[in-house]
């Protein structure tokens, strides 16, 4: 057995806890998870069935942690995890899964299959079976501080532009600010208007905020690829910066997996609770709304609908906040079928968008979102994740649909009351 395979197998062993054991013990191969997965419904590929993607982890659980499996191992009967299996499973686990978690919501025996796939990735990545694109992004995140290779000077240049355009100062490294804003590289490069919107809204609401030059990147490729120690290193950078600036709340921006990483996985990765709060930008805006600190004076008459980023809504718990915020400015809002915690994934989360090999299937599974949008026929599509936004634009273009994709925060900023 090669050294990296052995490491991979050990990583898989570490992933098995009582929840995983209860899940695998309960699976009856009923196939209902397949019907919840857009990679299965849109391609018809049976190998895309969510529970099937966990096979490497299942074999480890069975042969190491069950009585019959251990007996089988002694007699050489148990199914092994080898290089061949991992090579075959790599495309299923990374290219054909966004860890959107719909499967976890429908499994009749209650298996959290997305969690099981997340855990399977841990072993795959350590054994060296992960997509090039993601490995590259992770290396850049560790070395440069950003998966897209966005360095501090690029951020500072964008900030300068915004300051010149608006005449406002974007607070950088301000000690004692209430909020510290994280950004995804995608926002810095493609959607700098987001920073402008934050500046406008927070000014009006009278909240102090800052961006840290030492930790501004919100995304965590370590989590997408499934390497816990590197993921922890990235989280620690944010923790150090937040503690240094003595902020009360760290804001996760309009990005799905960044929120999952910093809000839900972060403390568990570094092994201790935070000394500050982490909130998604939509949660922060909604609490400002509740306190009457955000007021709008104009409405959007276009028909709007909302695409919920999976890691923010279903996996993150931010479901009602965007609706209440939309209510501030949307006159003609319609929900898509399956909206809320069962919303369909756009098809590009969980590292799929950083994985060129998955480009084709990512656009193929967009047919699901397309069908949802065709039922509702919105004039514009609101979302709260830069990664979803880019992929939604991509998919809409691919299928010749002319629907602008807009950010909730940015659109809210446009409708703020001038008082």
């Amino acid at each position: 057995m090669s050294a990296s395979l052995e490491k991979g197998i050990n990583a898989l062993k570490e992933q098995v806890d009582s929840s995983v054991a209860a899940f695998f013990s309960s699976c009856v191969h009923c196939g209902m998870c397949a019907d919840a997965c857009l990679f299965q419904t849109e391609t018809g590929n049976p190998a895309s069935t969510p529970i099937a993607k966990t096979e490497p982890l299942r074999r480890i659980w069975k042969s190491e942690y069950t009585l019959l499996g251990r007996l089988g191992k002694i007699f050489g009967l148990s199914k092994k995890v080898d290089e061949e299996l991992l090579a075959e499973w790599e495309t299923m686990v990374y290219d054909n899964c966004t860890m959107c978690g719909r499967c976890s919501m429908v499994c009749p025996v209650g298996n959290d299959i997305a969690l099981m796939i997340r855990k399977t990735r841990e072993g795959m990545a350590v054994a060296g079976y992960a997509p090039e694109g993601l490995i590259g992004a992770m290396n850049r995140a560790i070395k440069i501080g950003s998966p897209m290779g966005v360095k501090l000077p690029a951020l500072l240049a964008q900030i300068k532009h915004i300051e010149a355009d608006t005449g406002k100062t974007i607070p950088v490294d301000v000690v004692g600010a209430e909020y510290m804003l994280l950004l995804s590289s995608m926002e810095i490069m493609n959607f700098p208007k987001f920073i402008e919107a934050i500046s406008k809204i927070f000014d009006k609401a009278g909240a102090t905020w800052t961006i840290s030059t030492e930790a501004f990147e919100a995304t965590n490729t370590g989590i997408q690829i499934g390497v816990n120690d590197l993921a922890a290193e990235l989280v620690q950078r944010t923790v150090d910066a937040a503690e240094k600036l003595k902020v009360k709340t760290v804001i996760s921006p309009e990005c799905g997996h960044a929120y999952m990483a910093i809000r839900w996985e972060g403390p568990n990765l570094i092994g201790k609770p935070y000394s500050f709060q982490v909130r998604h930008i939509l949660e922060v805006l909604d609490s400002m709304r509740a306190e009457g600190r955000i007021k709008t004076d104009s409405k959007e008459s276009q028909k709007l609908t909302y695409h919920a980023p999976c890691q923010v809504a279903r996996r993150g718990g931010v479901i009602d906040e965007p609706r209440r915020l939309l209510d501030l400015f949307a006159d003609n809002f319609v929900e898509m079928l399956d909206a809320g915690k069962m919303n369909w994934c756009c098809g590009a989360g969980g590292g799929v968008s950083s994985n060129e090999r998955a480009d084709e299937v990512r656009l193929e599974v967009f047919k699901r979102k397309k069908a949802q949008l065709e039922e509702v026929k919105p004039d514009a599509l609101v979302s709260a994740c830069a990664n979803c936004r880019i992929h939604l634009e991509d998919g809409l273009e691919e299928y010749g649909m002319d629907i602008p994709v807009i950010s909730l925060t940015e659109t809210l900023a446009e409708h703020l009351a001038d008082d």
Partner: protein
Amino acid sequence: MSEIALLEWVRGPGFQIATIILVVGVIIRIFEILMLGRKSNLAEAKGSEFASGMRTIVTRSVPTAESFKRSSLTIVAGYVFHFGLFVTIFLYAPHILLIKGVTGLAWPALPTPVVDIVAVVSIIALLVVLVHRFNNKVLRYLTTSGDLFAWFVTIAPLVTGYIAFHRIGMSGPALLAVHILSVELLMVVLPFTKLAHAFTIFMARWYNGAISGYRGVQS
């Protein structure tokens, strides 16, 4: 061995052995799972863990509308044979007598003709499940020999019970012995096959609800 002796063995020592394996097996499996433990969550909670877990144990029995539309056959056939198993095992007069003999507990039975019909319907539902398993692309891909074995040991007591009741083929004692043997097979393999879901399902659903509920989403 004579028929009567066989029947005596399966009713006596055979049944005791099967019961011990079932009980010890279930305990081993539960321990195997719980001993692994689970790290406590260090992230600040947005919802309850325990209550959400308990709620999911119940709510997961009802599929979402969309899930029902896409998987209706699996769900309907599944409900029918599980319900049928419950009725035949627990509401059939001879079975209640047996349980009374062992535990002293008894409750009213359903009329035998009703149980008879329920048994037939359950057998049909299980046949539908099997055909579906071979016809459906996803199910065919997922199916292992273990699934077929579990299916067999589930349908066997229903079929042998039905045959015994209607005295088809052999003599009374032999038929009954075969029926009880098939039940003993089910008892012995239940903890060690996917049929373990009968008890692990509560743990799995609880974990699912707890993990999700902690993040503020009722799953």
